[in-house]
């Protein structure tokens, strides 16, 4: 099949599903078929992405991409914006992940949302999200990417506030939307800066025009442009200081958290940086900022994850933390590692969110882990699949998280774009914290003795929910083999190479290893990670199961730190006090004085003047026919006189 046809299928299947469920869903009623339609649409999309992936891999090595031109959007002066889509090694993997994981989550939702009266609306939003996400990752220019970027933001808002009758949930949606606006404004400015410097916004052209030599200058347009784009990333991919919306976004239905707020949308920022890797490597100052912010986010979010009681909040902070790792990897130039972690994270975090969804479903919408416990007996399938997600995220081999996270940690030390022991140390501490809070979650949810009351019997979820869990568990367990590190590959039979890095080589900037860092270091780091994680996991498990008093005493001992973590470092309170409240107050004043006092008064004045003028001329319309005729004739005479004079 031709690439155009496949691409149309890819893009339009979810759009048709969206339109169908959105327009007719409510009218036709029924609880099963909206989900079936949406899942089929998503699956068609997945099949199309497999086809496109196949087509891309058949392309010759030096031109490994397909361009699909749809139409010209606008032409302003010398600026021409074609709506053109790019399927290359990078976006072909992205569409596979989006539609693949997306389809599984759609199917899971059929079970999870079965009781909800708004099921047709839910599925139409979900399909619309897929459509926008596909635009985002396939658009071949920044404006087109931005269209998708805003589209997924809208869907995120709609789905977080899906149960909008609950005021708190509606507010969470607004928070996500508004925080993202801040990032998006910077994103737009970044586009302007880059356009004025390069004269193009095409992604491939931007990469090829990027200077080969790094520019060490804070005021260089490339540095400023990439920094502004990065502010957009901090909004969309939930980095410090704009990460605050993501934990609140858990107000949405759990499959939405899995799809949008873990696997796909929040990784859009990382995707964008990977996509513009040559541009970012040309701006080393930006890279330093990116790495610092990423690492800061990874560690801070992990510490906040430790004190959460809501199962979804734990996973949310974990997502922020993992996104921090990806961003950090971009910052040290390890774009392939960032992308690798993006893919494996999509697998194991979607798995864990869906697992959490299954738990919540089984526990009759109980989300507090203190009320759970002993679920490993009640929900064996959920437990075992969740277990694989846990093994994956704490980075034990051979599960996928081990490979991708370890690669990031390896480049934290070994990359010659700023790798050092401090970075590695922080990344390592962050991963130990991850192990700690994930193990805590496991202990509370599954291993501990049961805590639920007798009339609250949890039950295993139906197969529409467990089958996607099992498929995702398989992916989470094996996804790591996409990128086997060189050190391990050397001792394996056949020396399998790092497939993902090799596959992405034509489109992204690859990291280089510092001099003096040998393969022994790689073994050492790997060993430290695995041993560290394993020890922390075992100790945590032991403490939470047998010595809970020790945990409680430690918490009381460090009450100050605990309080800071529970209050999320007072960041939300700070924003509330200094930004939100001031904004509300100044908006009120603007409304009272500018809107009512100036604008309304001006408009009213114009209306008054018009009215008075009308009243002044009203006598002309007497209604007397002969008056009219008289005036007409006088006019006629004057006209004729003028005619003859001139």
């Amino acid at each position: 099949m031709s690439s155009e046809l496949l691409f149309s299928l890819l893009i339009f299947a979810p759009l048709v599903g969206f339109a169908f469920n959105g327009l007719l869903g409510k009218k036709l009623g029924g609880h099963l078929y909206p989900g079936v339609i949406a899942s089929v649409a998503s699956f068609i999309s997945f099949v199309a992405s497999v086809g496109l992936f196949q087509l891309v891999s058949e392309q010759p090595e030096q031109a490994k991409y397909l361009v699909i031109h749809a139409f010209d959007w606008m032409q302003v002066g010398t600026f021409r914006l074609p709506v053109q889509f790019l399927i290359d090694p990078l976006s072909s993997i992205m569409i596979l992940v989006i539609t693949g994981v997306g389809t599984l989550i759609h199917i899971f939702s059929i079970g999870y949302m079965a009781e909800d009266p708004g099921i047709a609306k839910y599925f139409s939003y979900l399909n619309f999200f897929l459509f926008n996400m596909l635009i985002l990752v396939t658009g071949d220019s920044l404006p087109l990417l931005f269209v998708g970027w805003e589209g997924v933001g809208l869907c995120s808002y709609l789905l977080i506030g899906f149960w909008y009758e609950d005021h708190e949930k509606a507010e969470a949606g607004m928070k996500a939307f508004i925080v993202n606006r801040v990032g998006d404004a910077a994103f737009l400015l970044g586009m302007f800066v880059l356009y004025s410097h390069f004269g193009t916004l095409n992604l491939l052209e931007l990469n090829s025009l990027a200077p080969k030599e790094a520019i060490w200058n804070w005021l260089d347009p490339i540095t400023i442009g990439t920094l502004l784009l990065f502010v957009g990333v901090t909004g969309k991919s939930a980095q410090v200081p704009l990460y605050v919306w993501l934990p609140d976004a858990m107000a949405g239905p759990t499959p939405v958290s899995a799809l949008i707020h873990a696997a796909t949308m929040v990784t859009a920022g990382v995707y964008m940086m990977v996509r513009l890797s040559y541009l970012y490597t040309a701006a080393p100052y930006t890279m330093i900022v990116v790495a610092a912010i990423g690492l800061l986010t990874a560690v801070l979010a992990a510490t906040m994850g430790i004190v959460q009681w809501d199962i979804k909040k734990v996973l949310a902070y974990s997502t922020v933390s993992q996104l921090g790792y990806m961003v950090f990897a971009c910052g040290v130039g390890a774009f392939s590692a960032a992308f690798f972690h993006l893919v494996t994270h999509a697998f194991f975090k979607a798995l864990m969110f869906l697992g959490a969804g299954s738990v919540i479903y089984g526990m009759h919408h109980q989300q507090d882990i203190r009320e759970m416990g002993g679920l490993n007996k009640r929900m064996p399938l959920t437990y075992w699949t969740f277990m694989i997600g846990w093994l994956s995220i704490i980075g034990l081999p051979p599960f996928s998280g081990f490979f991708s996270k370890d690669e990031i940690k390896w480049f934290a030390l070994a990359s010659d774009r700023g790798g050092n022991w401090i970075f590695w140390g922080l990344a390592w501490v962050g991963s130990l914290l991850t192990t700690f809070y994930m193990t805590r979650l496991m202990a509370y949810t599954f291993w501990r003795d049961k805590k639920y009351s007798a009339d609250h019997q949890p039950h295993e979820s139906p197969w529409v929910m467990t089958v996607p869990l099992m498929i995702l568990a398989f992916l989470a367990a094996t996804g790591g083999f996409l990128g086997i590190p060189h050190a391990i590959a050397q001792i394996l039979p056949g020396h399998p190479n790092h497939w993902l890095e090799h596959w992405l080589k034509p489109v992204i900037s690859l990291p280089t290893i510092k001099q003096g860092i040998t393969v022994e270091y790689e073994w050492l780091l790997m060993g430290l990670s695995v041993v560290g994680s394993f020890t922390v996991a075992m100790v945590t498990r032991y403490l939470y199961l047998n010595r809970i008093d020790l945990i409680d005493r430690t918490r009381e001992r460090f009450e100050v730190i605990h309080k800071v973590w529970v209050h999320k470092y007072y960041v939300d309170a700070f924003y509330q006090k200094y930004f939100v409240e001031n904004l509300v107050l100044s908006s009120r004043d603007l409304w009272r004085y500018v809107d009512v006092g100036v604008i309304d008064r001006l408009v009213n004045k114009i209306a008054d003047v018009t009215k008075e003028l009308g009243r002044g001329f009203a006598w002309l319309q007497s209604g007397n026919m002969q008056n009219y005729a008289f005036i007409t004739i006088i006019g006629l005479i004057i006209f004729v006189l003028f005619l003859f004079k001139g």
Partner: protein
Amino acid sequence: MKGLELFTTVTYAHFLFLSFVLFALGVLGVLLRRNLIVVMMSVELMLNAVNLTFITFAKALNQLDGQIFVFFVMTIAAAEAAVGLAIVVAIFKRFREVNIRFFQFLKG
């Protein structure tokens, strides 16, 4: 004797003068009379004054266009009379009189 030519020889100027007088009478009738039927007759008078001018110039310039126009004017005049009379009848039915001031009731 030269001055008498004005009265003895009929020139185009005579026709035009007559036409002017008729038209002026028509205008005055429309402006001053209150009876609708008379007003309509005055309108007819104006139209026919114009017809006379047309014919005069057709003859003077030796072109047929003017004469053809007259046919059109007559057609329009007939149509106008039909509509106008219908209105007059309507006014009469309503007010038992055909005074032009009744049109003031149409004022919005």
